[in-house]
């Protein structure tokens, strides 16, 4: 029971070490070997271990004097997020190859993956906080060393980091306060769940946790860092941020906020849901106005995460299921959208929408691949997003009719926003002078890379039962 989880946890760190130490000496095949290393955790996750991965647990006292235990545990909730993490990482490795310092780049990606795996399985509050804060730094270094093409990525990276740390700076105090409340003097999350609500400062502690999760997700008024960071980072980093780090925030709500403070969360839920709803609309309105397609997708990602949060805070089982499914879908579709937008940016040299028109003639394959994921994002029936958003809307309709109507309207807005962008970029009359400058269409290697994501979108859309089973067991356990 212990070994598979230990493998899963250590594998990315070993891979990171390997790529930091060995890759600089490799003349060729760096990306291929990095890709194989990145697939390993996925293999470990789905290897038919005796007893299965779900239920695996490691519990060793790490610092006895601090009462910190190295306590990792995989339950269904963790499994869903682990699946997402291990699926997304190979794509990040596959699509991006920096011009120099490849080993450093892949090393940080693996390091981040390891921290995320630790975070999603952590059952000790301090371990949770450690992974939570630590995962910012690989992103920071990825940004400052391999930052985007548009200049001051250092400033943006620092702003991102400060935003995040400001959100979570008081987590230590909150954790210590919980520790003092519990009569057993423990940081174990499951044990703390019994005491947390009886702490005299429960409302403050809960608020501190919520703030830090809200900043990373980001929930509505805490998204100041988002657009700049997403656009300044390289495509790979942006995918890590939008597909994985934002999910870490969602995971935080599910793992800490709900189990520890169930009744407080019930009180906060309407406020949080209102914020998330405003976030959905705000994100879409911003996306609509963006003249830059990378920023447009960033705001779309922001709005999508808030959509998930609306479902999550609705306290409705059906909507929660939808939200969890949507966590997965959002991860996949946004990854794909950022990948294709990254490819387009690489080919045309900038990310201004108005600059080009009629690219479908020059880049037909990229155009159709983009269409697939645009349709997936706007929740075309048959894609995974349809199931997820449908479940959220169904669940909401029983209690919050107005909210679900507004959200329905938001889906329409997504359609308009994305179709307008596609219209401007790919259709319309081609501008011969500018379009001739852009390089050739998608190559077979890139097609193969994006292919699994397209398949995943439709598999979840047409046969969602396996993943819904996992989600059902989460909801069954938590309700």
């Amino acid at each position: 029971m212990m070994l598979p989880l230990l493998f899963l946890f250590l594998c990315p760190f070993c891979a990171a070490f390997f790529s930091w130490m060995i890759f600089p000496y490799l003349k060729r095949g760096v990306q291929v070997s990095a890709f194989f290393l990145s697939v390993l955790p996925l293999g470990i996750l789905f290897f038919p271990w005796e007893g299965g991965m779900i239920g695996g647990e490691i519990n060793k006292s790490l610092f006895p004097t601090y009462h910190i235990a190295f306590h990792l545990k995989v339950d269904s909730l963790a499994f869903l997020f682990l699946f997402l993490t291990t699926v997304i990482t190979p794509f990040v490795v596959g699509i991006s190859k920096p011009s120099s310092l490849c080993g450093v780049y892949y090393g940080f990606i693996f390091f981040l993956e390891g921290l995320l795996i630790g975070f999603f399985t952590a059952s000790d509050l301090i371990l949770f906080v450690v992974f939570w804060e630590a995962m910012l730094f690989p992103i920071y270094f990825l940004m400052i060393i391999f930052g985007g093409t548009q200049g001051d990525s250092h400033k943006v990276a620092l702003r991102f980091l400060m935003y995040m740390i400001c959100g979570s700076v008081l987590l230590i105090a909150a954790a210590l306060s919980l520790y003092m409340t519990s009569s057993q003097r423990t940081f174990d999350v499951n044990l703390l769940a019994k005491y947390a609500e009886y702490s005299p400062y429960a409302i403050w502690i809960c608020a501190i946790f919520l703030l830090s999760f809200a900043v990373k997700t980001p929930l509505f008024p805490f998204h100041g860092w988002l657009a700049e960071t997403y656009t300044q980072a390289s495509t790979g980093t942006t995918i890590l941020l939008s597909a994985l780090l934002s999910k870490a925030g969602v995971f935080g709500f599910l793992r800490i906020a709900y189990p520890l403070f169930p009744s407080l969360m019930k009180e906060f839920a309407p406020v949080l849901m209102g914020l998330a709803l405003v976030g959905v609309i705000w994100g879409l309105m911003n996306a609509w106005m963006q003249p830059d397609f990378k920023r447009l997708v960033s705001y779309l990602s922001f709005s999508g995460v808030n959509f998930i949060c609306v479902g999550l805070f609705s306290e409705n089982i059906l909507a929660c299921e939808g939200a969890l499914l949507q966590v997965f879908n959002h991860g996949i579709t946004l990854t794909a959208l950022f990948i294709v937008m990254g490819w387009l940016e690489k080919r045309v040299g900038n990310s201004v929408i108005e600059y080009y028109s009629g690219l479908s003639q020059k880049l037909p394959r990229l155009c159709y691949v983009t269409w697939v994921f645009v349709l997936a994002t706007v929740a075309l029936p048959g894609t995974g997003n349809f199931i997820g958003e449908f479940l959220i809307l169904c669940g909401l309709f029983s209690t919050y009719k107005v909210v679900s109507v507004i959200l329905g309207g938001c889906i329409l807005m997504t359609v308009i926003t994305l179709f307008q962008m596609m219209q401007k970029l790919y259709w319309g009359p081609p501008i011969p002078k500018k379009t001739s400058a852009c390089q050739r269409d998608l190559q077979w290697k890139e097609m193969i890379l994006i292919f699994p994501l397209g398949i995943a979108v439709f598999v979840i859309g047409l046969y969602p039962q396996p993943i819904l089973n996992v989600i059902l067991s989460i909801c069954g356990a938590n309700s």
Partner: protein
Amino acid sequence: MKPTFSHLNFNGTDIWTMSPFLTLMVGILVLILCAAFCRKESFQRGWIISFITLGIALGTLFVASESQNLCLNHWLRCDSYAHVFSYFILCIGISVIVLTISDFTNEFYAFLLAGVFGLLLVAQAADFLTLFLGIETLSLSSYILCAYLKENRLAMESGIKYFLTGSVAAAFFLYGVALIYGATGTTQLSALRVNIESHSPNFYLLWGGLAFISVGLCFKAAIFPFHFYASDVYEGASNPVAAFITLGAKAGAFMALAEVFILFAPSPHPLFIQGIVFLSLITLIYANGVMIQQTRIRRFIAYSGISHAGFMLILIAVGTLEALSALESYVIMYASATWGVFACLNRHINDIADLQGLFYKYPLRANVLTVCLLTLAGIPPTWGFFAKFYIFKVAFESGFTLWVIVSLLTTLFSLFAYMRLISMLFTQKQKNITQEIG
């Protein structure tokens, strides 16, 4: 009991107890003789002698046993804390000498070893007078080391400044000792608690004395209102000297504070605790705020040291044995990380801007520097986080909730400062110069 002459019969055990000191003495003498008689350049190999001396001292510390001789016992402690402190001190000495392996003359190493000797006295002091002797030996050698680069005006200024402020601090300390002697009739650390209980001394005399002592030590540790010399001294001193002052003086001051206030002093007065907490908070706020504005790398390290000192000071207010172990882990973390930072610098790196693009030129050095800075900033997977966390836990358990919250908030400033430095390492040189001018 006063030691009488009959106790002067030293036996083998006593010699072993003193052996680290004796070894250092011999080393210093050899170095001075070498400096006097071997004037040739080829004989300037002081670092080898110092290495050997410190190595032997470390070895003798392993076998040093507690002496029963009253004449020795009265002045030197041999308990487990003293032992741990002594190991730490000798390790600091060795690590500073590692930084100096270049062109330093023999007498430089003699003063360095004298400083280590003083620190060792502080570590094992059983009496206020030994403590004072240790601090003074350390200080005097540091003054000289600071001003050692005679051709450098900044170095002279640094030495003079350090000397003047250090003398005031010493005066404070000595005055405090005198007051305590007046109150309790003893200068022995271990007799302090007993005498206070049996004599019920004058409140003002006793706590006034302890306050003076803490002021004197706060000077050495560079706590906020007494920190003003630190940045200038660090800036003027050469790299290894700055490292020695940072590690040695700070460690020495905190060792002394811990000995007086955690191991031996009576349970502290609430007013005293409030004062310490106030000093700690104001130091944290001030140093972290000022650290952001620094442009010189050694001044930056100085302010970083001040903020870390402020952080550690809370443990003196907590005053439990758990606080002492937190202090030990934090001091060791701070010393190793700061040593790492100094090891990555050299005399050509003075401004923070000089670090620009270091990663692309010297990747290994930049990586070590990054890890050390992350440790100092207390970033989670590093040891710095856990050392900080331990202090937070200890402080929280003793009820300093407000302190925990405020100091967590001040870490935001320090984090910004450290990250700005790190980001400088990874900035490529050619493209940013024009932008900054424009």
